[in-house]
């Protein structure tokens, strides 16, 4: 399996995700944002961090970079694309995913381990998990408050396009288990064809037993299926 991790000025989870991919024997390349061509890859990762300092709107400036037009056309052709945290924000800003990520409702940066419940495993990214499985992942963001209009929300809900929702350890999904104000506790969404995933939690931070757990590994393993 070949993967490409896109690096912007200000990306800071690029190394972390590369470590997780390489641990699973992905052949990974780091792609600088000024490149105009993407190597052929089975998976494109837009990693977390603060591309361009998160200035203006998180992800907005990175969405204008050279390489993004390549990512967009790859995405439209059906390549698998994973946007994590800032990567999710970038995928939204460039139009590959719909909706918006607003400031967290508490107006504070939140970084902590949280729980998410897998809503559906019928897709390329979560097939190694069980539907209903609860994962411990880490979040770290200022703008993770997902918002979209009613019509799109219905479309997401009705077509299994929301793979992850914030929950507690027992799987309860409600206001109390919502860390950032996201509509319907949404932690990640797909595009219509389910080849593009954006998620706020960081799976790469849960890929090592010595640290705080391995619940995120399944995502990368699923992609190898």
């Amino acid at each position, binding site marked *: 399996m070949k993967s490409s991790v896109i690096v912007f000025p200000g990306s800071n*989870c690029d190394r972390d995700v590369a470590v997780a991919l390489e641990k699973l024997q992905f052949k990974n390349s780091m792609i600088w944002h000024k490149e105009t061509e993407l190597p052929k890859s089975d998976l494109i990762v837009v990693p977390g961090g603060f591309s*361009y300092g998160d200035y203006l709107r998180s992800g907005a400036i990175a969405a204008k970079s050279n390489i993004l037009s390549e990512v967009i056309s790859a995405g439209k052709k059906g390549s698998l694309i994973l946007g994590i945290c800032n990567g999710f924000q970038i995928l939204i800003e460039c139009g590959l995913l719909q909706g918006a990520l607003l400031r967290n409702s508490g107006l*504070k940066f939140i*970084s*902590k381990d949280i729980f998410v419940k897998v809503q559906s495993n019928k897709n390329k990214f979560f097939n190694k998990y069980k539907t209903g499985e609860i994962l411990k992942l880490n979040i770290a963001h200022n703008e993770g408050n997902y918002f979209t209009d009613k019509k799109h929300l219905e479309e997401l809900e009705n077509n299994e396009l929301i793979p992850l929702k914030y929950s507690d350890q027992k799987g309860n999904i409600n206001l109390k288990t919502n860390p950032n104000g996201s509509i319907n506790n949404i932690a990640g969404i797909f595009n219509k064809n389910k080849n593009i995933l954006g998620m706020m939690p960081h799976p790469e*931070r849960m890929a090592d037993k010595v*640290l705080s757990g391995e619940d995120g590994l399944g995502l990368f393993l699923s992609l190898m299926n």
Partner: protein
Amino acid sequence: MTVTKDQIESHGLKPDEYKKIKELLGRDANLLELGIFSAMWNEHCSYKSSKIHLKKLPTKNNIVIRGPGENAGVIDIGDDDAIVFKIESHNHPSFIEPYQGAATGVGGILRDVFTMGARPIALMNSIHFGLPQNEKTQNLLSGVVSGIGGYGNSVGIPTVGGETKFNSTYNENILVNAMAIGHANKNKIFYSEAKGINKPVVYVGSKTGRDGIHGATMASAEFDENSEEKKPTVQVGDPFAEKLLLEACLELMKDNSIISIQDMGAAGLTSSSVEMASKGKLGIELNLNKVPCRENNMTPYEMMLSESQERMLIILDDKKEEEARKIFDKWDLDFVVIGKTTNTNRLILNFDDKKIADIPIPALSDKAPLYERKWTKSKLSKNKVKIKDLKKIKIEDALIKILSSPNHSNKSWITDQYDQVVMCDTIQKSGGDSAIVRIHNKDKAIAISVDSSANYCKADPKSGGKQIVCENWRNLISVGAKPLAITNCLNFGNPEKPKIMGEFVECVDGIKEACEFLNFPVVSGNVSFYNETNSKSIFPTPVIGGIGVIDNLKKIVNIKTKKSGNLIMIVGKTLGHIDQSAFLQENFSIYGGPPPEINLVNEKNNGLIVLKLINENLALSVHDISSGGTLVSLAEMSISSGLGLKIYKPKKLTNSFEYFFGEDQGRYLIEFSKNNLKKIETFLKQNSVFFEVIAEVQNDIFEIEKTFSLKTKDLHDYNNQWYSKYNAIN
């Protein structure tokens, strides 16, 4: 044009200091030169009040690669790995503008570490505020915390721990100390010493603006006509620029084009260029027309004294310019040759084809004034508190009071605003005795802790100085690390007052004694004097940042109790020293009396033995006993695991308050399996370590036999409410 008396005074220089300047120059100084002298001779850059005392500190042993004097200290942790670390204060800026003050404090200390060729791998902080009910505190707290997080999170360095304290002594003068820790190859450390003549001096990073120009308000009056432009401005941090600068510098450092490198910190371009030249015994000549400026019409005075952030000065080797420029272009950063090294031993500044300053380098560095200031010994308070009056309160109420107090409450409101795990090497985040960060790609880690105890230091500066080093050492031991070295940030009042100077001298003596005894050298640090408002000084507050090494990741322990049925013992002797305790302060607002005594022999012996128990896998969880005493420490272990404890009453009980809340030093709590009791007992006896079994782990209930019984969950709640209530929006 010579300078006036007013200008000399407004630059914070004393008349006899100016006299010395004239002697060194052989003439009067012009205004630009005066500005440069004032920046180099002020307390912050010259250490003129502290230097002779700091010299007493132990700074060398077999693991120290570079001690104080560089941007940060460097120690050897084996296998070519070096750890580069330092702590620094940003107290005054943070009081004026908490977000930017704290943020730029973090930015500054990060640059100190990556200038030396180290990739920063962790950030820590020590923050002290006035009482919560003080009007300013809440705003300062939330601004400082989001500033620390805002900068570190954005650069992508995990903030893994720290300490937060509230004390009325900081009502008008908060403390914000930030520590950065980096990892480098020990054969690729970069220093600031210039070498070679006619080498290009390169300015890299962000442009220079009118940020934080000291004393410039009046002084620059003659430079420009538009008075609006004269306001000294607060520095604003740009973490994005810092991240680019970090990556660009580390990329350039991969080959050997850099001769020397120095960040522009306090006194910006002035101190960086002087320091490089001074260390290399060389001269430096700059063309100020080349300095990249952010604003129009900036004067040489402003360029030399600006404290704009995210800038560095580099001396490059011959013919390396083009390669280096490419790297900085890639990262969209300025890269401009602004001067060269010379053999003149002078700082020469040119502007518009005129020489505008010409100062012998030694005049700015080696010949800066040094003071042996008058100091008086602190009066120690001998009177012991009479415990009789205190019997009216119940033990469990006192415990709850402490656990739910601002100083002892769980800090997750703070730490949830810090990205603690970016870089994917954080093994232990905040919440334990030390943070633990793995060395990337290796099976080893470092432990980090920062500590202070202003109340102890106020009551007895020398013993307080010792205590804080010991507490730091203990915190490192408690996670299974071998303590290696420290950095320190000495926050004090006005050194011109003999009483304050005395506090400083005695604290340093205490630190010295403990560091020497424990073989725990000081490799870097920072002194922050003049922490006072309206002539009221803060309590002496030395902050110690310690590093330990863990050679095997399987030998790490934490404070979480593991299994019902296991036993807990106290290692170290409990005498019941209750003066200066959290118990008296939180329950009765009593602050008098001496702090607990430090016995360095026991301290070292107990610590090394505990480390052995950990390495033999005999200690399953460990927590040192610090503020709040045994009962609070036991409660913290319970809260962190959710398991309860049955605590025994000691047989020869004189007073249970003294026993359970006393803050005798050199003590640890250790959880172990019952089967190992004999083995551990024998081992401790052989090594003359005092111990007593004090509790048994059980489910859910936290109790002292025949005294009280509480649900662990309730303890958790008491410990977790204060911050969110205090900071609630509605």
